């Protein structure tokens, strides 16, 4: 599904964040990316989203080299990015309106995009309902709680029927109960849809809850991917199980070491 091929990236006048970095993410896998501040987590997600271009190497998704935002990639940010002047429903429909504005050009919209207005309305209703915010569809973002805003941002991505969902610290600004609630929602979504997803987080527990595989980045130049297989992902309710706590401890040790030297780590 995703191939990072000898990817190199640095900010202007900065040191390389990634150097000849290779990574393969399979279709239907749920990944999390964790690492200290400034290690390049969000940068990597922006590269996957096509928002920035690599200095060298390439990002290939579904066989296509990514040079700009890809119509079938959904992106959810920590800051929900909802239009303050639009209602929840209008915000949820925004991507569909943008697609209708350009038509099925294959650049801004998929060439096989759904154009039946009735079906699209039903799709908006479905996701608003699925995320439990259908009753809030006439509200403006300012009238919602943070959790509800994030649900609206997720709905806005899902109505576009993505084949890849990228989430950048989506729940880090939320209180713990709401965060766990949304982690459950996203896990349920992954189990039902089998959609490929990559979630950036700085929270170790979240990385374990949401990632079947956890990519650990370090503050030094990232050359070899540090990947932790995570068989205990997918359930918020198992937080107190020994296996879950062990996995958290393992990630904590990796982050503390910074170099990731650990026998449990897979280095392809």
């Amino acid at each position: 599904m995703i191939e990072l091929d000898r990817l190199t990236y640095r900010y202007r006048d900065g040191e390389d964040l990634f150097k000849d970095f290779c990574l393969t993410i399979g279709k239907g896998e749920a990944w999390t990316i964790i690492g200290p501040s400034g290690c390049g987590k969000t940068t990597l997600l922006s590269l996957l989203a096509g928002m920035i271009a690599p200095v060298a190497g390439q990002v290939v998704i579904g066989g296509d080299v990514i040079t700009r935002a890809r119509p079938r990639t959904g992106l959810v940010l920590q800051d929900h990015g909802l239009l303050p002047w639009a209602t929840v429903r209008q915000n949820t429909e925004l991507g569909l309106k943008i697609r209708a504005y350009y038509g099925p050009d294959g650049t801004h919209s998929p060439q096989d995009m759904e154009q039946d207005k009735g079906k699209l309305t039903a799709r908006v209703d479905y996701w608003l309902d699925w995320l439990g915010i259908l009753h809030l569809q006439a509200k403006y973002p300012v009238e919602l709680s943070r959790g509800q805003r994030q649900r609206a941002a997720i709905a806005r991505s899902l109505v576009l029927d993505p084949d890849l969902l990228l989430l950048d610290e989506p729940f880090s600004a939320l209180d713990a109960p709401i965060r766990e609630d949304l982690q459950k929602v996203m896990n349920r979504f992954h189990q039902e849809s089998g959609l490929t997803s990559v979630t950036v987080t700085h929270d170790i527990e979240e990385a374990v809850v949401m990632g079947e595989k956890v990519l650990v980045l370090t503050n030094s130049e990232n050359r070899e991917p540090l990947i932790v297989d995570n068989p205990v992902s997918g359930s918020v309710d198992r937080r107190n199980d020994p296996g879950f706590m062990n996995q958290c401890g393992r990630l904590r040790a990796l982050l503390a070491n910074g170099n990731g030297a650990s026998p449990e780590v897979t280095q392809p």
Partner: protein
Amino acid sequence: MKRRVTLVSTLAGIAMFFLIWLVCAAVLNKPILPSPFVVVPLFFSSIFGELGLHFMASAARVTAAIMLATVTAAPLGMILGQSPRIDRLVEPLIAIVYPIPKIIFLPVIYVLLGITDFSKVFLISIIIFFQILVVVRDEALSLRKELIVSVKSLGAGRRALFRYVYLPASLPAVLTALRVSAGTAIAVLFIAEQSLTEYGLGYYIVVETYQVLMYPEMYTGIMGMGLLGVGLYFLIYSIELRVSKHLFAGG
């Protein structure tokens, strides 16, 4: 969140205004300040006559000026807000010209554009132009990067960003700028209409009534100009209520 003006607060404001006027007229007890009981009936009897023509001339000028300023300043403000490079280039000029009271350009405009209605409209429009230009630019510049990135991730290119983000984001700012500058626009209109014209409330108040000591008639002109200002303010405010519902939500 903005505070909503209610019908009750508006009526209360009007009642207080007339009460103060009534008390002042009674205390002063001179022809220079007639009672509202004299002026208001006279206003309604003359508004369908000559006063109405003066009112229409003033309203047409200020409306034309608002339209001219909006259609030129709003797109330019959006361009500056989207292109920091161009903004940096133009900013020094705006910073110098913005605070200059534009009324001082009146003779220059008369010389360059001639003594026409258009020159009066142009003078008022350059005042509103800078108000709109600055707020629209600032509004576009203040849009959070995350908002732009998230809309781009939905497939938006430059055109769709303009249509779905910059335009609706700027509209409330345009309306607020118009509402705030409506008073200044009418003040300048008043000065510009005092000479070199035959119709307009400024001309009616100063030349046709004040200079010949027709005080009650002068006050009907003042009332007309006041109503023009208040009417314009509330017209823009009602449009704001429609298009900027999110700013009034949750109250």
